[in-house]
Structure formats: C-alpha cells, structure tokens
C-alpha cells in the first residue's frame, strides 16, 4: 500500500507551479480572457515548453507517454491557476481519445505529434455537456453521434457562441451533419471510449475544482490577514476564521478521494466511474463552499469585478456543472451503493 506520489511526480508539479505563478498571474489571464478568442498562442507555446502538452502523447509520437496519475497533480495546478479548458481538453482528453481510436494510424500520425508540440487545439463534444468548449479555435473537433466518434473542423459546422459568466470559457452550440467522411469510429467501439473520456473529463475537473478551492481559500486568507476593522485584521475574528477552516476541512478530505479516483482510472479498475463521481462531488462541494466563504471574508470587495476572487469563483461555479452536474454524478454513486449485493463497509475500500 503506497498512497503517496513519486518524487518525480511531485517535482513535475512543483516545476509547473513555479512556472504558472509567473506566467498565469491573474492580471495576465484577465488580459487574455478579454480578447475575442480568450486564448493566447504565446502562453500555449510556453505551456508546451514546460512539457504540459506532451504528457499523454506516447513517446513514439513525440510525447512523454505518462498517464492519469501523472496528470492529476498537474490538473490541480491548472485549477489553482485557472488555466482555461482548451489545454486539458486537448492534451489530456483528445490526446487520450485519439491514441485509443482503433487502428487509424494516419490520424494519430497527423494529430498526436502536433498535440505534443503545442501546435494543435482539439475540442471534445460529449453529450453530457450542453455545449462544446473552445470549438471555434479548434483545429479538430471530436464529436459524439449515437456513440460513434466523428472528427470535424470548425468550417464543417455552424457554431453559435454562448457567453458564460466565467470569462475564461468559450462555449459554442454546434450544428453539424454526421457523415461517413467525418466518422472515425463505430458506435460499438465508441461507446466504451466515450465512457472513458467522460470519466477523464470529470476527473480533470474534480482536480481543477480542488485547485480552485485552494486558491479561493488562499485569497480569502490573504485578504483577511490584511484588511483591518475594529483595530485588527478581520482574519483575527473567529467567525471569519471558522468559515475558512471549514473549507480547509473539505479540501483535506477531497484530496485522497481525488487521488484514489485517478488511480482507479489509471489502472482501469471496475469501480473507476463511481470513484470519479465521488471525487467530482467532493471537489465541487469544496469549491462551492470556498467560493461562498472566501467571498464573505472579502466583504463588498468580494462582490466586485476588480478583486481576483471572482475569476476563480466563477470558474468553480461553471466547472461544478460541467462534465456531469451533481445530479448526474450522484446518480452514478447511488447506482453503485444501492445495488443488490453491493460490497460496502469496512475492508471494501481497496477490493
């Protein structure tokens, strides 16, 4: 039993963190998010230099060939620094899906090296999501159609932008017609792949929500330690302290659930789906409480556009309902624990 990360995994996380502190500072993100595309080619290149786009791509295609467990600590950082959907969708989800498509070597040769190099953006349209994120800028859009997998480009489809309260999001309604030309994979093989993409999509967001929760607590703590009322920092008042402590408790007890879910996905364990749903629910809870309580610690400042808190808060609200909302994930947990003969109780956790 070893429920810890390898030194290499921690070192990678630390390096990425060091990089993002500078390159994804809130004022820079604000600037990028105010542009039409909401994305920066320059930042993507820098992320690629850090190896972030190459993680999942097999070495034969110019990547690093790492897996879900290597991703998970990085996804927490992507959340903490509010890196928009396109990176994870491309480098984690699309990369995995393309690699696991049956046979189509030409397609893999075309796209996987570009993902690794950071020169392609790929959007993923899964039916659990109402809209497709980052579809307009995408070089390739992978779409679901009755469990089949289709690949289209933005020029093949009609995109209607839908504005989210989260300024980092670029969401599109998509109208398109599936054809033999766009089909990459049959429904028979696609069903399982889509299921796995769904688990990875939800897992990635669970990690990002955990990172967001931590960021919001940190912002709340910083603000409360500086802002003075009644002659002392408001963070010295217990009512403020205890609200932030409550978030710390939720965060502390989300981590192991998240890490176990990543392990289950990585090892393709039978119960991966329920572990992912548990993680998404726990992380969503932590992030929503963090948003509420960090805002409260900020007073009116928390209700402004100016305070950075809003960037992370809105992202948390949005991601909580993406890749399966609470009802969706609760249902998956319920199906598992209320099933006849479900193995529950002491000793059942790692079996």
């Amino acid at each position: 039993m070893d429920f810890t990360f390898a030194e290499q995994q921690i070192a990678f996380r630390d390096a990425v963190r060091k990089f993002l502190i500078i390159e994804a500072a809130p004022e820079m993100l604000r600037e990028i998010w105010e542009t039409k595309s909401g994305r920066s080619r320059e930042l993507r290149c820098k992320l690629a230099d850090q190896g972030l786009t190459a993680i999942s791509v097999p070495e034969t295609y110019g990547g690093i060939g790492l897996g879900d467990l290597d991703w998970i600590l990085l996804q927490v950082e992507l959340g903490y620094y509010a890196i928009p959907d396109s990176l994870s969708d491309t480098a984690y989800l699309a990369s995995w899906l393309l690699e696991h498509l049956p046979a189509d070597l030409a397609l893999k040769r075309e796209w996987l090296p570009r993902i690794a190099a950071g020169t392609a953006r790929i959007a993923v349209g899964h039916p659990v999501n109402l809209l497709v994120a980052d579809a307009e800028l995408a070089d390739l859009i992978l779409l679901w159609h009755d469990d089949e997998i289709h690949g289209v480009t933005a020029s093949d489809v009609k995109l209607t932008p839908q504005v989210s309260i989260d300024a980092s999001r670029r969401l599109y309604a998509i109208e398109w017609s599936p054809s033999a030309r766009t089909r990459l994979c049959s429904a028979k093989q696609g069903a399982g792949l889509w299921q796995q993409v769904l688990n990875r999509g939800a897992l990635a967001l669970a990690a990002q929500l955990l990172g967001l929760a931590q960021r919001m607590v940190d912002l709340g703590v910083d603000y409360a330690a500086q802002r003075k009322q009644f002659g002392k920092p408001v963070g010295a008042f217990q009512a403020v302290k205890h609200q932030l402590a409550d978030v710390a408790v939720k965060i502390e007890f989300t981590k192991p659930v998240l890490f176990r879910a990543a392990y289950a996905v990585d090892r393709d364990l039978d119960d991966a789906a329920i572990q992912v749903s548990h993680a998404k629910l726990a992380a969503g809870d932590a992030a929503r409480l963090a948003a509420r309580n960090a805002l409260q610690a900020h007073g009116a400042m928390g209700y402004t556009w100016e305070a950075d808190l809003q960037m992370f808060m809105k992202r948390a609200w949005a991601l909580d309902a993406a890749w399966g909302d609470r009802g969706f994930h609760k249902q998956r947990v319920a199906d598992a624990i209320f099933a006849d003969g479900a193995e529950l109780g002491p000793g059942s956790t790692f079996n």
Partner: protein
Amino acid sequence: MRLEYTGPQKRFRLEVREWLAAHVPKATLPSFDTEVGFAEHRAWEASLAQGRFSAVTWPEAFGGRGCGLIEWLIFEEEYWRSSAPLRVNQNGIFLLAPTLMEFGTEAQKQRFLPKMATGEEIWAQGWSEPGAGSDMAAIRCTAQRDGDHYVINGQKTWSTRAVWADWLFGLFRSEPGSQRHHGLTFVLLPLKLPGITIRPIKQLNGLAGFAEIFFDNVRVPVENRLGDEGAGWNIAMATAGFERGLMLRSPGRFQQTAKLLVKLYQQNRERADADPAIRDAVMRSWMGAEAYTLATYRTACRLNKGAKIGAEASTNKIFWSELDLLMHETAMQILGPQGELMARSPEPADPGNGYSWLDGFLFSQAGPIYAGTNEIQRNIIAERMLGLPRA
C-alpha cells in the same frame, strides 16, 4: 502509488477475520458504562490479548505483534466488521500507550504496557477540571513534591470510564504559582489510592459513563511521573495529537455505520423516501465514510514515509465527528417514531455491539465536544494551518 494489499497483509486479514468469527461473544455485552458490563468488557480484552490482538501495533515484548499502520487499519476494519464489543481500554491502548512508548522509561513500559494489553489495568484520562475545559492550560489540580512522592490535591472531571477504571493519566500543576502551560507534570496514578473520591456522573443515556475525581492529599511515587517534571504540557499535546490524528477513531467504525445505514434505508424505503433528503444524506454518509478511510490510509502511508502529522490532524476530528452526527441523525429520521424508543429495534436495524441507533445518536452528540471541541479545532486550523492572525 499502489493501492493494493500485499500477500501477507491479505493473509493477516483472513487470520483476524477467522479469529474474530470464532471468539467474538455471540450475545451482546451489557454497556461498559455499567459495573457488570465493564467486567465483561474487561474479560473480552483478556481474550483479545490471548489471541495477541489487543494491541497489534505494539512490540511483541509488550503483548503486541509489531504490526505496521496498514495492518492496524486492516485489524480495525475486521474488528468493526465483526461487531465485536467496544474497547473498554481504548484510552490506555490507543492514547496513553503511544505516549508511553515515546516518553516513558524502560521500567515504565515494562510496568504498564503488558497489563494494559491484557485489560488487567484499564485507564482513564484526567485532563479536564471544572475551570479547565477547552482552556486546558487553566489546570489547577496540584502535584506538590514531597521527597520521593507527589501529593495531589484538587479535582478532575468528565473522566471517561473512571467509575470502574484502575488507573488515571493526566496533568497536574507541580510548580506552585506557575502559569498556563508552564509547571505542569504528567502523572500516572492508581485510582484506588487513599484520599481519592470518585463521583459518577450520568450521561445523556442515564449511565455513569464518566466521573468527577476528588484528590485529598493523595501520595503518588515520583517514579509514576511520565517525562520530566514541568514538561507535562508537551507530552499531553503529543497524546492529544495521537488522539486527533489517527488512533482515536479508526475508519472501520464509520464504514460499518455507513453500511448499516444503507441497509436501514433500504429496509425502510417506503417511509424514508417520503423525504427525498434522506436518500441524499445516506449517500453523503457513505461518501464521507469512504473519504475518511482514504484519508486515514493516506496519512498512514505518509507517516510510513517519514512525514509528520501537523495541524491538519485537526481537520480529522471535525470531519469524523460531523460525519457521525450526519449518519446518526439520518438513521433517526429513517426510524421516525421508532427512534425515541429505548428498546432495541428489531434486527438488523441496530448497529450491533450491543449498541442501538439511539445509543449511537446520543453518543454522536458528544463527538464535536470531547477530544478538543470542534471550535478549538477550527481555531487551530485557521491559525496554524492557514496562518490567520491570532485573536
């Protein structure tokens, strides 16, 4: 990361499971907060010790098996799964023993650990006083040095199982006039000494689960001091650390409750589903117990790799006590008008161990109070984990 048991760990689980199946008393024992029940639980400790299962993590020399933390968790899972009796010597085995191993002399370990393992000596804790609850540094009970003895005077209170326990460990003010956490000494003393008066206190359920202890010139030999004179505070904090951290509430307990709650819900769907919030609470209970288990395994693995448990241990106490409240409040809601009834509900509605949902519900109300109230834990988290300014 590798979340699997080794072959020997799997065999250990089976060994524990088989032993418990053969030895756990078939009839549920009366509560250990009664004289008869206390004696029967003591006898159960002796039989656990015979199987060398009463303190699996201790060195063999003291009656243990030298097991690691993962084996300890496996043992606890099997223990709760088997509905074995509650551990009457929990304060000794899980709280004092780790402290003794760290701070005790060889002679003290030899003297106290073996008899603790067999249940021959059951321990109570003496921290709280009428004027020192959350503010433990306000302790006034004195231990005045007189040659090779301490002379103890004053009063302790809320001492769990002290009505029938044999020994007490606690903090006493050994330096006259000292303030706060200075001048306190950690003392081990037999509860049958002359000058000690024990007054039982009835808890919510009407049983004498804890007691007040009055000391009137009670003479205790100096060799019963743990650690240095005046160094008691830090040693007590170590005990409190073990308590909050890992040993006080093992995950098996909550997983068993969660499993039984799922069962209770499924057997009472008609009534329970009239309030859709119940199903949600049952699910949150299961997820909470699972999260607590995972967190404990993670902590155990980190400790195995040399990490120290810091202020984050305070998150544990809050998490399990709130989870316990949620689970028992949910059970009471499912039981509806049956909930208030003192008679044991028909099987398998009750958790076992001679424990009813009502017993569990009452005891869950104490969780956020003992072992440092949850408000105190939140203060610790805010100041030492998050770094917020002190009040």
